[in-house]
């Protein structure tokens, strides 16, 4: 009857491994670099833990958390009313946890003489109310707008933060990511786009202050800079077990050091 001790040992092992496996799904803003880096650091200190990280968008992350297919849902936006409603219907208590802040800076071609913009001008440019740089103190030339693509949470966040929820100008060009926006604006003397703070040092572009305020850690944390957003982990109620330990790590000194290194704004 040696079979039973083996079976018991095997089941114990499976359940232990299962308990130490963290499934994190959601935002590509968080899931592309920040959370995988945190996971690697965490694994060094907690060798028994494995991660499954899928960065397929904030919507996927919140849905996965509600469905119970992920312990942590990553999101670069707040949960929508319909998502809160869906969670309630399934008996899930949605808990948002701010991981870090993500500022969005307005970038122009390095040779553009415009030295700053107002929030109103940014809204008018991205909605197509203003189509020529001469209307905002620049050299005459048709403004070329570069945005993230429609599947990006940043695309809709920018509408909320900068455009009073209005639609983008029909002429705006959709780019796959921050690098592409920076590259296009660097090539086009009449270009304008928005970038995460991690990408503002790209060559050929410059960042302009908004209403006289430049995007940096101090202005974002003090809420003076208008285009900043918190990023979130969503859990079902108070996190427990390994998920709680990982979140504590992410919000603690070590995790926040990674936040800074990757180019986001820390909690403090």
């Amino acid at each position, binding site marked *: 009857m040696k079979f039973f001790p083996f079976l018991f040992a095997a089941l114990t092992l499976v359940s232990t491994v299962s308990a130490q496996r963290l499934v994190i799904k959601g935002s590509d803003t968080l899931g592309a670099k920040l959370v995988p880096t945190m996971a690697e650091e965490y694994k060094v200190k907690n060798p028994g833990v494995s991660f499954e990280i899928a960065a397929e968008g904030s919507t996927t992350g919140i849905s996965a958390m509600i469905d119970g297919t992920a312990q942590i849902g990553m999101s670069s936006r*707040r*949960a929508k*009313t*319909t998502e*809160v*409603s869906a969670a*309630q219907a399934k008996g899930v208590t*949605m*808990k*948002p*946890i*701010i991981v870090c802040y993500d500022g969005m800076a307005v970038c122009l071609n390095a040779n553009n003489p415009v030295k700053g913009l107002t929030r109103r001008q940014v809204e008018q440019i991205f909605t197509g109310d203003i189509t020529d740089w001469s209307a905002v103190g620049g050299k005459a030339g048709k403004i070329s707008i570069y945005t993230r693509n429609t599947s990006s949470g940043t695309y*809709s966040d920018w*509408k909320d933060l900068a455009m009073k*929820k*209005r*639609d983008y100008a*029909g002429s705006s060009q959709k780019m796959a990511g921050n690098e592409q926006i920076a590259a296009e604006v660097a090539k086009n003397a009449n270009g304008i786009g928005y970038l995460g703070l991690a990408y503002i040092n790209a060559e050929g572009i410059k960042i302009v202050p908004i209403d006289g305020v430049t995007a940096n850690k101090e202005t974002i944390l003090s*809420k003076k800079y208008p285009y900043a957003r*918190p990023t*979130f982990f969503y859990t079902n109620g108070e996190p427990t077990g390994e998920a709680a330990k990982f979140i504590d790590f992410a919000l603690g000194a070590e995790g926040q050091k990674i936040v800074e290194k990757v180019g986001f704004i820390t*909690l403090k």
Partner: protein
Amino acid sequence: MNKRTILKRFAVALGFAISASAIFAQDSGPLIDLLVRKGIVTDQEAEELRVDLLKDFTANSSAGKLNLSSSLSEFKLSGDLRMRYEANSQTPELATGGAPVSNETSRQRLRFRFNGDFLLQKGWSAGFALETTQASDSGNQTFTGGADDYGIFLTRAYIGWQPNLNWSFAIGKQKNPFLTTDLRWDSDINPQGLFQGYKMMLGVKDTLEFRAMQHFMFENNEQLIGPAGRDAWMFEQQAVYTRWFAPENLSNVIFAVGYNAYSQSTMTGLLNSAAFAGSTRAQNYGTLAGEVNLAKINGEGTSLKFYWDGSYNFTGDTRAYRVYNLNRAAFDAGEAAWLVGVGYGYGTGKVQGDYSARLDYREVGVSAIDPNTNDSDWGFGKTNQKGLKLALAYNVNDFTNFNVTYFDTKIIDEKMTFALGNLNRSHELLVDLVLKF
């Protein structure tokens, strides 16, 4: 009670105070932002508060369960339910000149309408309407036997686009865009086709609008040769001039001149009252409509209205004698139709106690108007008639109207037995209770 519960109650209370509506949870965003900026709550507490408020919102309001497109700037649902008592009499003309026999009818009817109108961004709009009964000139469903159930039909479905303050376009089945009266257009009819409008502001007090519509009237099988194989289209154009004047620019005078014609086709099987089945030939109508609205004529809220409408078929002779096959020696071609009316009212018809009264007189020659679009609630949609129409309306409350309408018509050209113009005498009493929502 923990801090978050206290804060939540505070935000909810303020939300109620600010908005006094079920959408307070969504409106509390700026309030929470303010609390964060003032350092009263941390970002983390604020986010938890937002989720808690959303939970309340989704649990306690139906609006919280709606998932509307972000491109939608306004979504309006509206409608009305009308209960009608109707008593009428129609006396057909007899060719022999013998004593006419009156056909008396009384019936109970209902009309249900449900509208959805969507305003989208960049000047786009769309809408639909559902209504009882299939005939385009009436939404009335007569109560029939055995507690029958009744059908609902799609009476409007359109896409609109207003790129700027001057231009407007609409395609689909839509509200009638022309300034007119029930002399030529039944208000129940929603034409289908393409509308284009251009509006010019001539100073502060004058506007000039050009309106044009290509109205699809009948689908024919193109495999057939001649007019029976061509689709029927109606083309209407109108120029509308409006001048506003004192007191407080509430009064105005409006002149509208237009032209209406058809492509040459054949129409069969239309469902409207007194519809003409046959050729669209020789319908070239010049139109002239307008009104003078005088505000505060007898104190605050009162108004006096004079209104008129006219139609002249430039090819009425051909229409009467070749299309309708009337006897030239016996009957007039009846190319002209006209209406003059006067109205007096208090309020706008939207508030309890508002009332209005209108009285008009009209004469309608047999070939003067399109029998497929004129009002079925005057002379049962027939032509070759003259007579009065009286309409009284009273607001029982802000959303319920009590209306009484009466018309009386007489034949113009006697002994005409042609189906479109064969009513010797008709009258009808309509008593309506209308609830709008």
